[in-house]
């Protein structure tokens, strides 16, 4: 582009001033490019949700008119469909089910995976390396492979069509990931700290509970957020195990209950999507940096 002419002008002037100006111009171009790229990325990623937001408040005659501008309100907006979602569907039940399933799954996951991660990260056993890999591989065994036999198992323990079946099964997805992440966080805690606590008279277990756990607390919070997101997004098990409306979670309840045969309650569906999507992404964003740290550290030692 203009690089050639710029180069010539430098030769002509051979002055520091021209070099400086060139550097500034390049810098500015790079900045503009960066902002354009960032805006484009945000639009591509969030576009469907922004459009859902617009749709949620549209009147049906406005929505179902092929040549209306879909991005504007051609008729006055309405809150009727959002109200329908809350008053005439089981949306709040789905939200409640998702919340308590999520909280219980997070609790089970932490109780089981935190000690396991500590054992793998700190108590140097010859088998801890292979064991860490074995646990990670479990994450790669997908729900699509297991849902058939698990659904028989769920029937055998009389939890079919019951939200509790999800509480039982989801930790199989979340434990491997959170062990993986927690091993990373635990390795970042200097060994001296526990050793000092042990010199001060704590047992190994006491040192773990009183010094290490508080130190990795930020990591634990990141794991909580990640685990909750995984549990809230799961679809296949929830679809296969639970059929009654009152027992459904968001990810299966919304698509199955707001679509009746061929009738889609589009505005209410979009409202539900937005209401769920924005809070989760917001909380996740708060912990993104920690999550990245955990992932790198967990990945290094296998």
């Amino acid at each position, binding site marked *: 582009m203009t690089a050639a002419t710029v180069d010539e002008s430098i030769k002509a002037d051979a002055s520091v001033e021209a070099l400086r100006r060139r550097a500034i111009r390049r810098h500015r171009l790079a900045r503009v490019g960066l902002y354009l790229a960032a805006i484009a990325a945000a639009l591509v990623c969030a576009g469907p949700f922004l459009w859902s937001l617009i749709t949620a408040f549209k009147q049906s005659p406005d929505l179902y008119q092929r040549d209306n501008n879909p991005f504007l309100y051609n008729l006055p907006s309405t809150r009727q469909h959002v109200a329908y979602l809350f008053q005439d569907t089981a949306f709040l039940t789905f939200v409640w089910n998702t919340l308590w399933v999520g909280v219980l799954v997070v609790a089970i996951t932490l109780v089981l995976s935190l000690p396991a991660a500590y054992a793998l990260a700190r108590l140097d056993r010859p088998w801890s390396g292979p064991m860490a890999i074995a646990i990670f591989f479990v994450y790669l065994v997908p729900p699509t492979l297991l849902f058939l036999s698990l659904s*028989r198992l769920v029937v055998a323990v009389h939890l079919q069509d019951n939200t509790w079946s999800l509480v039982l099964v989801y930790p199989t997805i979340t434990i491997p990931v959170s062990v993986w992440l927690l091993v990373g966080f635990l390795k970042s805690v200097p060994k001296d700290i526990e050793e000092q606590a042990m010199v001060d008279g704590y047992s190994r277990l006491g040192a773990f509970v009183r010094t290490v756990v508080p130190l990795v607390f930020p990591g634990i919070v990141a794991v909580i957020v990640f685990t909750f997101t995984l549990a809230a997004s799961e*679809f296949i098990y929830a679809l296969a195990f639970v059929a009654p409306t009152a027992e459904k979670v968001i990810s299966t309840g919304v698509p199955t209950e707001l679509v009746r045969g061929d009738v889609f309650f589009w505005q209410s569906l979009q409202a539900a999507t937005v209401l769920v999507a924005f809070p989760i*992404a917001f909380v996740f964003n708060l912990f993104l940096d920690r999550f990245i740290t955990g992932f790198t550290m967990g990945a290094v030692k296998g």
Partner: protein
Amino acid sequence: MVQATAPKPDIQVAAEDRVGRHDRRRLADREGFLAWAMLLPSVIYIVALVGFPLLLAIAFSFSDVTTGDPSFDWAGLSNYQKIFGDPVFWRSLLNTIIFTVGSMVLIVVFGKILANILVADFHGKWIVRFLVLLPWTTPVALSAIAWLWLLDSIFSPIDWMLRQVGLINGNMYWLGRPSLAMLSVIAVHAWRLIPLAAVIMMAGLVAIPKDIQEQAEVDGGGYWRRMFEITIPLMLPLIAVAALFGAIVTFTDMTVVYVLTRGGPTNSTQVLSSWAFFRGIEGGDIGQGAAVALFLFPLLLTAAILILRAVRRREVL
């Protein structure tokens, strides 16, 4: 899982002790016990709810179990014979490969670009990161619903924009035509996973020592040259990890297909996992469903071994 049942290597501990002092042995013994005590609950949980069902799935695939008749009768290889004789199976296998490879290419390329944007410093970074995370953190069934409406056969706003520009007159029928439907499913799936790939790659970008970059800049390497000769080679193992992660998730995912097309039109977007679901749960033929689902396993195992090797290589770096 094999390691879980392997005997404790006492020989090594004993060898250490002979060299070390007496009290060290006590500590080592206690740590050995503690390590097992802390690890065992997780291992039991996973063996009971992953290991056992996996074996059960293998057993089902050789049986005639259906939802209506849950009694277990040995059926030998008949389930496998039936699925191999079914053209839908081969169609699904081919679709699975197209779906996986197509999504993976998109995920890696755009994930890398997105990671580069997200590690840069600019105003409003927080809001951009928030918006970029949306596809990944939203329950996939819900975002797929949003896309179902975006790709609607009549009211699609994408069609509306294309009509405004004058590229088309009628509608595209994104999900109604076989090749377009496959393209849509791949695009939506990639869209959902690109943020995850970007986050994994960000971890790699952040880990590249700053002085290498600076040295290259001092030596006169431009942005693109630095990108292709330093950043990408250094990040390659992590890119491989992100790609294989994406591949495994893609390979086994059926949510996007289930919500957008239900495998249609006429099985043109049917993948192995969705077909296993329709056969096993909705069709009630658990034996055949299990046989289809198990077909994923050898391919997954290969991918897992590749991941392991990529991670190992990273350690050498």
